[in-house]
């Protein structure tokens, strides 16, 4: 810990040219590693004294292919996102959204939710900052739903592990749910269900923060710090998720999957949501499970519903928001978002 603090406290890090030269170099290394994933994983699998086509062999192959792949993808996505997000901040977003009472405040809120950097530990000050600046409650909700729901990590991994078609479907429907749920919540006039002190709060004019001038090298550095912080934090979720995915891939029989998560079983969609909401993991942990489920023939709608409820609705976040929202408002919030997820699940089970 002390070492880390001191490293951060170095007045100047690497000179700028190292960042500019290092970027293409890192990209080439990344690409070279990524292109060798299949031979690498087959080579590692062959080291185990098991039949490649047995249940265990399949599970091992899945695991050793997915771990380096997900970690590489995660590193790349977090870096690019970190750099892009350095152009955004909650303060700027608030200025853009303040006073946007018209209908397009909702999709705009959802879009900014994807690009604005914020961590769940500052959800409360962010929420208060938005509401007290006159941003409608519904738009604030669109922002808060879209952030995790269509976050770049989930989308990027979905693209890399499952394919662009499903990633696009997820993007479109995740975004639509965030927009429509915000709109519905906004129309319900829920301001009276905020905690009393929040309603009475008036933060007054915002102290104008001097805008920090950043060079491109500074932004690259922000991206690299993000990688260290986020990958350092979520890798354990990734391993657990891939472990579960590997077990499903290797051992769960297809006919059982079809019975439980197939399109025929109408109750599978609400069941997926009920199971998914209390589950708390990073998007990076759930996508490998999604990959394995789809590979075994789980219905797309059911799987989407599961993924959305795991990522977008999490109990820890609700507990944090409890400080500003009453239970009643939290319940309405969960109900509206779940309704959107259920609708998406049923729709895809019917049309696919």
């Amino acid at each position, binding site marked *: 810990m002390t070492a880390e603090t*001191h490293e951060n406290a170095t007045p100047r890090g690497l000179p700028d040219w190292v960042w500019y030269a290092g970027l293409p170099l890192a990209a080439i290394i990344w690409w070279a590693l990524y292109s060798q994933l299949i031979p690498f994983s087959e080579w590692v699998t062959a080291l185990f004294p098991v039949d490649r086509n047995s249940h265990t062999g399949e599970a091992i192959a899945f695991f050793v292919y997915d771990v380096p792949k997900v970690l590489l993808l995660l590193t790349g996505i977090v870096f690019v996102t970190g750099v892009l997000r350095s152009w955004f901040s*909650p*303060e700027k977003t608030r200025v853009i959204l303040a006073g946007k009472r018209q209908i397009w405040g909702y999709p705009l809120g959802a879009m900014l939710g994807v690009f604005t*950097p914020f961590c769940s*530990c500052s959800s*409360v000050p962010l929420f208060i900052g938005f509401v*007290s600046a006159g941003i409608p409650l519904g738009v604030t909700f669109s922002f808060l739903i879209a952030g995790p729901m269509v976050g770049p990590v989930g989308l990027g991994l979905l693209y890399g592990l499952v394919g662009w078609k499903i990633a696009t479907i997820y993007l479109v429907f995740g975004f639509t749910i965030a927009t429509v749920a915000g709109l519905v919540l906004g129309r319900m006039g829920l301001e009276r269900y905020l905690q009393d002190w929040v309603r009475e709060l008036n933060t007054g004019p915002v102290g104008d*923060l001097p805008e920090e001038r950043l060079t491109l090298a*500074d932004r690259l550095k*922000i991206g690299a710090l993000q990688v260290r912080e986020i990958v350092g934090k979520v890798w354990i979720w990734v391993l657990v998720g891939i472990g579960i995915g590997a077990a499903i891939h290797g051992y769960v029989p297809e006919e059982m999957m079809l019975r439980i998560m197939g399109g025929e079983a109408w109750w599978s969609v609400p069941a997926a949501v009920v199971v998914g909401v209390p589950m708390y993991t990073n998007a990076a942990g759930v996508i490998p499970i999604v990959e394995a489920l789809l590979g075994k023939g789980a219905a797309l709608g059911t799987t989407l519903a599961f993924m959305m409820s795991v990522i977008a609705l999490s109990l820890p976040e609700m507990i944090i928001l409890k400080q500003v929202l009453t239970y009643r408002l939290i319940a309405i919030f969960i109900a509206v978002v779940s309704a959107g997820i259920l609708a998406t699940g049923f729709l895809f089970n019917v049309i696919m």
Partner: protein
Amino acid sequence: MKTVKVYGPGCKRCETAEQMVKDAAQKLGLQVEVEKITDQKSIAMAGVMSTPGIAVDGKLVHTGGLPDAAKLEGWLSA
């Protein structure tokens, strides 16, 4: 003597930020009073929407993420 307020509900980054302020003050040989604000209401009232936030003598100088060490020294010695 300068008064520095570090705003944050108590996540790891906020603690690191507080330590960075102390380290920077020590390095510059400045007497600095560091106050940690963890109450959500006070954080929001100060206009901080992404934590950690740092205010020097009542003026907000930084929000969101760890501050740059060189800039931090600049704020403290200004």
